[in-house]
């Protein structure tokens, strides 16, 4: 085939392209898959049952602050990674910040308490559930994000996959926060942090296979 032939074909009856569609699709995917993750949480482990006191609400807010900041930054980063030539390098380094902050806060909380209480603060009542639930709730969001990213043109597939995994993990953690009966900062730092990081790792490994174009 001659290249002129191809150019002819591509430019004949050219359709105009609407701008900003990729971003809108991404937002929709986040909302719908987030709602799906929430429904999975409701039908499997269910909402937290104990009386909703002030401590419960303030820890829920803390958990959501951590996960939503990751979702916000991650989503902004994905809109860049899906476009060739935009690395979003500054945002990429910023995404480590929530992990750092919650890690430091967790360490401070431990230092302020007697070492006897550490075991309970770290393991809580429910760390095993947390371990399974966050990646499990992240499956639907991850599939949705990959579907959106395949409409784009990511050129760094590992990194794009990792950020997709991170955002999916953070969405899973957001859903889990409404069940999670453990109110301690070290618990959030270790289990939420590790599970979201695990999702990012899996996403990074799958990225080159799933996102190729």
């Amino acid at each position, binding site marked *: 085939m001659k290249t002129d032939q191809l150019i002819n074909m591509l*430019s*004949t*009856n*050219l*359709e105009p*392209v609407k701008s900003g*569609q990729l971003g809108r699709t991404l937002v929709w995917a986040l909302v719908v898959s987030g709602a799906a993750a929430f429904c999975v949480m409701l039908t499997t482990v269910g909402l937290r049952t104990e009386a909703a006191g002030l401590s419960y609400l303030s820890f829920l807010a803390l958990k959501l602050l951590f996960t939503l900041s990751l979702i916000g930054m991650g989503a902004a980063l994905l809109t860049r990674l899906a476009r060739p030539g935009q690395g979003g390098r500054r945002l990429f380094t910023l995404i480590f910040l929530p992990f750092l902050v919650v890690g430091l806060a967790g360490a401070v909380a431990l230092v302020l308490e007697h070492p006897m209480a550490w075991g309970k603060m770290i393991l809580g009542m429910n760390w095993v559930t947390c371990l399974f639930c966050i990646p499990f709730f992240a499956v639907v969001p991850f599939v949705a994000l990959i579907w959106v990213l395949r409409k784009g043109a990511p050129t760094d597939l590992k990194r794009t996959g990792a950020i997709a995994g991170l955002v999916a993990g953070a969405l899973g953690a957001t859903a889990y926060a409404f069940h999670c009966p453990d109110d301690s900062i070290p618990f959030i730092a270790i289990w939420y942090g590790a599970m979201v990081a695990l999702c990012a790792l899996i996403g990074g490994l799958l990225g080159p296979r799933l996102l190729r174009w």
Partner: protein
Amino acid sequence: MDVKSSEPELRALMLSGLAGDAAAYRALLEKLSGQLRAYFKGQLNRINRGPVEAEDLVQEALIAVHTRRHTYDSSQLFTPWVYAIARYKFFDYLRRTKVSAKDITISDTEEMTAHDDHGHVESSLDLERLMAEISPKARQAIQYVKLDGLSVSEAATRCGMSESAVKVSVHRGIKALALLIRKEK
């Protein structure tokens, strides 16, 4: 045409193309093909591959530019966007053909805009054969709209489909062709 095309010129053509200006878009693709050819020839030269492979890559990159044109953010520069696509397609080609990226010297990375090359080599791709492999609906839509140059509404009457169905078929068909071309090599 022999003069090196500048960023503002290419960007203006791209913006018109995105708005649906076919003439500007054709001019853009013609200019890009020259620059892409120079880029791929330069890269392939280092791993001892010839002009036919370069032409394959030029066409693959042009199709990628076309099918992914919605990912260009009009607030950004255009050349880095094209260059990132070309680079991605080149590394994808290396991976597919099992040439290690280590075999290439990165130090003298060539700027895509540095040269222009208007060779008349044919690629190894056979459009008719590729067309035979996509779905009949998409094939017919592409034949009418993209090759015969019928308007979308004319094509719609001939195929007995709605206009939007024709547009969707063309869009899917081009993507299917892009996929086939990638698998060919």
